[in-house]
């Protein structure tokens, strides 16, 4: 577990991930050397697994975003593995989650427009293995998106 100072630093990192270490240190009221050491420590401990650029697919012309929710036919014990391996090969898939609940797997998919979505859906999604049921939720807007934690 983290001590208070690392927790404070982490909160500022989540709040402004692109800020330089010196700036994070200033906000968390510690020296840059201490901040750098604490960040390196969180990485070494596996708490901080990485930092990734976020792509805005709309800016690249992918105006359609769909959440596809799958129920799998679990009579085949390899259903999850086979489904996931096939889904990873669909270029338009940007996220994949597995769940405990009514939904087994969710795929986030982007497409240039509705015609492109329909084409991907027919040729790449309906052909995925072991699918028992599919539901689609069309993305309208993001109201909140944060990695901040209630710490």
């Amino acid at each position: 577990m983290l001590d208070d100072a690392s927790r404070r630093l982490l909160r500022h990192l989540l709040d402004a991930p692109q800020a330089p270490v010196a700036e994070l240190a200033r906000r968390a009221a510690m020296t840059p050397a201490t901040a750098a050491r604490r960040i390196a420590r969180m990485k070494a401990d596996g708490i901080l697994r990485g930092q990734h650029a976020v792509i805005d697919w709309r800016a690249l012309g992918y105006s359609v975003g769909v959440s596809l929710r799958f129920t799998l036919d679990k009579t085949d014990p390899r259903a999850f593995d086979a489904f996931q391996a096939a889904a990873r090969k669909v270029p338009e898939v940007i996220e994949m989650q597995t769940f405990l609940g009514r939904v087994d797997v969710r795929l986030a998919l982007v497409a240039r427009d509705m015609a492109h979505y329909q084409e991907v859906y027919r040729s790449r999604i309906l052909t995925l293995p072991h699918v028992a049921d599919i539901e689609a939720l069309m993305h309208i807007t993001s109201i909140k998106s944060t990695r901040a934690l209630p710490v």
Partner: protein
Amino acid sequence: MTDLDALDRRLLRALVADATATAGELARRFGCSQPVVWRRIRRLQEAGVIAGRRVDLDLGRLGFGVSVFLGVKLATRGRVSLEDFERAASAIPEVQMVEHVLGLYDYRLRVVARDLADFERVLRRRIMTLPGVGDVEANVLLSEERLAGPLG
């Protein structure tokens, strides 16, 4: 809309894998000059293609063992204000994501909690009391992966 060439795609893939890579490292890896890399990244940021950074944490190690995706349907569509629901849902600290969607549900929420008992507390006290909330479906997250998407 921004068009990408091969170098842009390579840079984007590299930054999605590790956003802390420096222009110098990327220049060496892709055999071009550091100012070129720096200008390309700057252009991608200005065009809004690179929208920010995501910090990937081991939530379990931080004491947040449970993430749940909720599908929420509003009970009295047309009579409840969407803004009221959105404002109240966004104000809940445990709610990391609120998305307005079209389909079986009206909203998708991502909720983080310490354990299932903590999640139940959030669900009962915070989610079920949201203005206009109707049917709620909960799916507990088991695994998650992000893919490069159509950058190939």
